[in-house]
């Protein structure tokens, strides 16, 4: 959260003064009352904030020119094409004023008044302070203008209809900057501001209903729109809650991509590579403090699994053979893994999630954790789709979900088939 905002809305005068001091030392920000062109420091801050919001990740085509748009975002409602946000006057946002930009980020409206689709996470960016939005704008106006016209969105009826979007916004879009919780520490508030706002974690970590609206409270889990991945709930110990973790472990996972508890993969690996690895130590820590404080909202009591029938035991025994032949070498005899290199499969939530999608994707496609400053040369998991049949993948997946103290539902060939495809 920006200290400007915080100080104007909270009563903590002393903390505030301290906050300012820290802020000045960290960013060396100068207040220019008769503010003219942004200085280098402002631009550096704006650049940093675009990293935090990962504007680059969405507004750059694969292998394309930074910020010139053209990345395809597939969703259940069609394919969105990100626009050019370089300061080119014809094809970018060169003729935008700061007010236009504020309305886009805060209200989800384009310069011509068109309502924007929530594939642009303004549903989260609305929480960002005016000062931060201004910094981002100044930075984006300072980069090289690139002339690039991008293809139009491919959104079929009815999702392309204005009234539907209008109705959707009425029901589900809550406009307004982040309001600090005075009962919490400054650090916690900074974390909440980042997670709910620029960091737009909710954009994925929330179940969505048929019209793409978030189903329940912030940061619950859900299958990601379009991408064939399940984004686990940050509110459930059985999924992605980090309530029981040490701050250090949370920080390690989110800044390096690996930790002794887990690895990030798929879309989350992209988030770490494109954005989180660049967050300042203070911001990463603030986020960790906030995430750790999120309550466990698991409603379901511990599921009691009945004694396995013989047929299921035989099925798992098949899986065990496959595990010994292809997996044990890396993941260990008892699924213990090697910390920071090969993730443990025993007692790993990613393996026992009720929805087995991510696990199946791991076995079909393999993967590498992201390359980050802290882990520049990660070790990888081979794909097995070219080596194992679907029934074998179902068996080995079922086995690792029910070995070494793990307990979760069996995986079927149908599940494996559903794990194929998708753009990630």
């Amino acid at each position, binding site marked *: 959260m920006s200290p400007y905002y915080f100080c104007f809305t909270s009563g903590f005068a002393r903390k505030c003064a301290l906050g300012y001091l820290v802020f000045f030392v960290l960013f060396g920000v100068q207040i220019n009352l008769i503010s003219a062109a942004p200085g280098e420091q402002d631009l550096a801050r704006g650049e940093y904030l675009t990293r935090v919001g990962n504007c680059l990740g969405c507004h750059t085509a*694969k*292998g394309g020119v930074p910020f010139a748009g053209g990345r395809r975002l597939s969703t259940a409602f069609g394919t969105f094409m990100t626009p050019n946000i370089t300061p080119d006057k014809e094809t970018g946002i060169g003729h935008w004023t700061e007010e236009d930009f504020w309305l886009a980020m805060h209200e989800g409206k384009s310069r011509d008044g068109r309502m924007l689709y929530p594939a642009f996470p303004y549903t989260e960016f609305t929480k960002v302070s005016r000062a931060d939005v201004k910094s981002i704008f100044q930075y984006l106006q300072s980069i090289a203008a690139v002339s690039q016209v991008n293809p139009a969105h491919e959104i079929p009826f009815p999702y392309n209809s204005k009234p539907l979007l209008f109705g959707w916004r009425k029901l589900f879009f809550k406009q307004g900057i982040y309001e600090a919780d005075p009962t919490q520490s400054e650090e916690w508030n900074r974390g909440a501001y980042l997670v709910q706002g620029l960091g737009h974690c909710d954009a994925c970590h929330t179940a969505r209903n048929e019209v793409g609206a978030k189903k329940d409270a912030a940061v619950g889990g859900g299958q990601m729109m379009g991408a064939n991945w399940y984004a686990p709930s940050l509110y459930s110990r059985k999924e992605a809650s980090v309530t029981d973790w040490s701050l250090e472990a949370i920080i390690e996972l989110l800044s390096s991509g690996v930790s002794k508890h887990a690895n990030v993969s798929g879309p989350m690996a992209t988030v770490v590579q494109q954005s989180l690895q660049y967050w300042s130590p203070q911001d990463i820590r603030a986020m960790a403090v906030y995430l750790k404080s999120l309550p466990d909202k698991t409603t379901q009591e511990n599921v009691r699994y009945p004694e396995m029938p013989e047929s299921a035991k035989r099925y798992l025994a098949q899986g065990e053979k496959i595990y010994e032949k292809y997996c044990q070498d890396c993941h260990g005899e008892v699924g213990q893994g*090697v910390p920071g290199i090969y993730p443990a499969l025993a007692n790993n939530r990613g393996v026992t999630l009720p929805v087995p999608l991510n696990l199946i994707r791991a076995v079909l496609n*393999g993967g*590498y954790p992201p*390359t980050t400053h802290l882990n520049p040369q990660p070790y*990888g998991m*081979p794909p097995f789709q*070219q080596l194992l049949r679907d029934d074998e993948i179902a068996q080995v997946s079922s086995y690792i979900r029910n070995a070494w103290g793990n307990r979760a539902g069996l995986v079927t060939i149908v599940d494996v088939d559903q794990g194929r495809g998708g753009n990630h």
Partner: protein
Amino acid sequence: MKLFILIILFFFALNVIAEGSSRSIVPDTMTERVRACTICHQDGDHDQARSTYYPRIAGKLEGYLFNQLRHFRDGRRYHQPMALLLENMSDDYLQAIARHFSQLNVPYPSPESIDLKSNEIQLVEKLIRLGDPQRNIPACSACHGDTLMGNTPYIPGLLGLPSAYLTAQLSGWRSGSLIRGQVTNCMSEIAKQLSYDEIIAISRWLATQAVEGEAQKVLSPDLIKRCQSIFLEGVAQE
């Protein structure tokens, strides 16, 4: 203050030792890091090399490999399993992986045995050694080296590859398909000039050649100019 630093150093050292011991089980090598690749690219496993579509990558030129890895990652060359593996990798890591494979010295498989008609052989040898000036095709060997073992740093060798793979590459360029048709460069322009019959004959001929010799290190200025896009692309990243 000194004491403080000492204490910090001490903890640091402890940490390193602890890390070292857990890591020692897993070799801290590139070979271990690229096991996700070698599950398919088992260069040196000659049964696999002959029976599958997987191209050999061991011993290929580093610059060439690096360019290809970026193409796969950024969607300019299409093979989904590789795109997914490379998705979240930095250029630095791709370079390290390219260097690793380029330094491997693994024996080549023996040539495929395919019967070629004598007119096919003639046709191919002419294209390889002389090219076809009328269609603006230089001799393949002018770029790929007299030995056809490549030309440092960006032009790959053509020997020791499965014929099915070679056909797919040349046809991919010719038809502009997703596999390899998304990049325009000196090679895609040449492939567009070839007929499908020529492509098949060349691919079969190349796969039947014994692998011998080293990569060349000189390319004439006009051919450098012709392949400018590749040279610029490579340099930009160094």
